[in-house]
């Protein structure tokens, strides 16, 4: 019961923030709303007993990605100003399709029978994640570092100011 109320509060907060991200004309405000979304999702991770992910969510999304977005906004002056229109011409069409999509998908998901396992989360989850990285998931683990390297190189190439 308490869990449900908590979930509703957090989910409502997150969706509200998400809505703010989508509708805010000012990009900086949109970014702040986005931070709110990230925070709400971290809280949901706690509800789901994934504490490591909750913290990682805050560290990476708020500490790193949101900051990156704000920096990028600042780097392109005029992006945050009042512009002619925040939306393109197809927004109403997209909105309708989106609502349809949401309705259909959630209807399907509710109907879908999932076999829930009534087990509790393991106590040594973090340890298991750590050994997963260097065990079963070692190739993705190494590929992740390559991906980061490539992203770093690419982004530096793109963003660098050449004199």
């Amino acid at each position, binding site marked *: 019961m308490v869990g449900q109320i908590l979930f509703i509060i957090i989910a409502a907060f997150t969706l509200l923030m998400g809505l703010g991200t989508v509708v805010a004309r000012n990009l900086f405000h949109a970014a702040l709303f986005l931070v709110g979304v990230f925070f709400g999702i971290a809280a949901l991770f706690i509800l789901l007993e994934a504490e490591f992910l909750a913290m990682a969510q805050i560290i990476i999304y708020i500490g*790193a990605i949101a900051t990156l977005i704000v920096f990028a906004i600042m780097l392109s002056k005029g992006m945050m100003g009042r512009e002619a229109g925040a939306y393109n011409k197809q927004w109403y069409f997209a909105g309708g399709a989106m609502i349809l999509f949401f309705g259909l998908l959630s209807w399907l998901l509710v109907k879908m029978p999932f076999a829930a396992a009534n087990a509790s989360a393991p106590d040594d989850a973090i340890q298991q994640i750590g050994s997963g990285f260097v065990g079963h998931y070692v190739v993705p683990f190494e590929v992740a570092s390559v991906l980061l390297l490539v992203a770093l190189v690419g982004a530096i190439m793109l963003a660098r100011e050449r004199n």
Partner: protein
Amino acid sequence: MDLRALGESFVAMLENVGIPHGWVLLINWILGAVILLGVALLLAIFLIWFERKIAGRVQDRLGPNRVGPYGLIQPFADALKLLTKEDITPDNADRITYNLAPIIAVFHIIMLFAVIPFADKVVGANINVGILYLMAFGALGSMAMLMAGWASRNKYALLGGFRVVSQLLSYEIPVGLAMLIVVLMRGSMNLNVIAQGQGGLFGLGWYVWILPAVFIMYFVAALAEGERAPFDLLEAESEIVAGYNIEYSAMKFAWFYLAFFLNTWVLSAVAVTLFFGGWQGPFAAQIPALGVVYFFIKVFIMFFVFAWVRATFPRLRIDQMMSFCWKVLVPMGLALFLAVAIILKLGLPSAVTYALLFVVNIVILVVTLKLLGNYTRDLPKNKNKRLFAPELPRL
């Protein structure tokens, strides 16, 4: 006196009165939260006095001495003044963001108190990801600064915000690496467990003896994380007036100010927990209340060192500061991480392992300082060269 027993008996009392378990829990949490908040606020007020006193003494002044004995009441007087001062919001400011920034600034610092172990198990929330929690809520601070700088709609504020966030982000990496190495040693991210692990041999089990270079890296990076001299670029009046909080006044400014001191205190507390055994000390195991005393003594000594450094050193240039982070601390941290990981996997007896770790730490520290020294010695010759120009083969 056992603090835990106190808490437990309190819970038992409430349940005996007949309050349902859920509500007892809630009351317990609220009580804990209020206590933590109170500790934080009192500390902040005391720290302001403490630091001003130290700075005064170091610089051959008296420091605050008028209001109350030794000027002890001074911070309260300041607080009263700030509470009643006129609050100016610039017309251009983005109001909601402008008002939210100081709230978040103080919120994120106060949140950090929840995981600091004041004594064995005397900790707000004994979570398994304590270290990550510190990093997570620490990262929130940069968001507050960006908000403040942006919402003020002032070039200096924005510039100051950006500079300080760049600095905080950069120095978060060495801090994180230092924490990572400690986690590697202990095998847990729970701060209480980490402090427990440093009990042996009358303080010789403190990680500062085993990993001196890691501690020094942490300390230097923490100076920058706390925006303290010699890394206090945000307050470089000659360059950017007063940083991101230039447009703030009265209580909103006070919150930034408070956050600044609390930040330093938390960084000291983390340093003590990670490297100086936390609450560990003679008889702390028998009398848990002693642990709190030891902990606060250690933290204040640590804080004193921070304040001492601040009062003594001149400020670095921002390019020097960033280069120092990325070209000295980060490589050093990565080298330490790899060295520690390899040594721990060698499977030697623990005494030998610790000795080896110490030696390797010293070696890495000496090598780093030597390279740095060579560079600064050659500085006049390479005036046109970049700071710490890499000696890599041309590709």
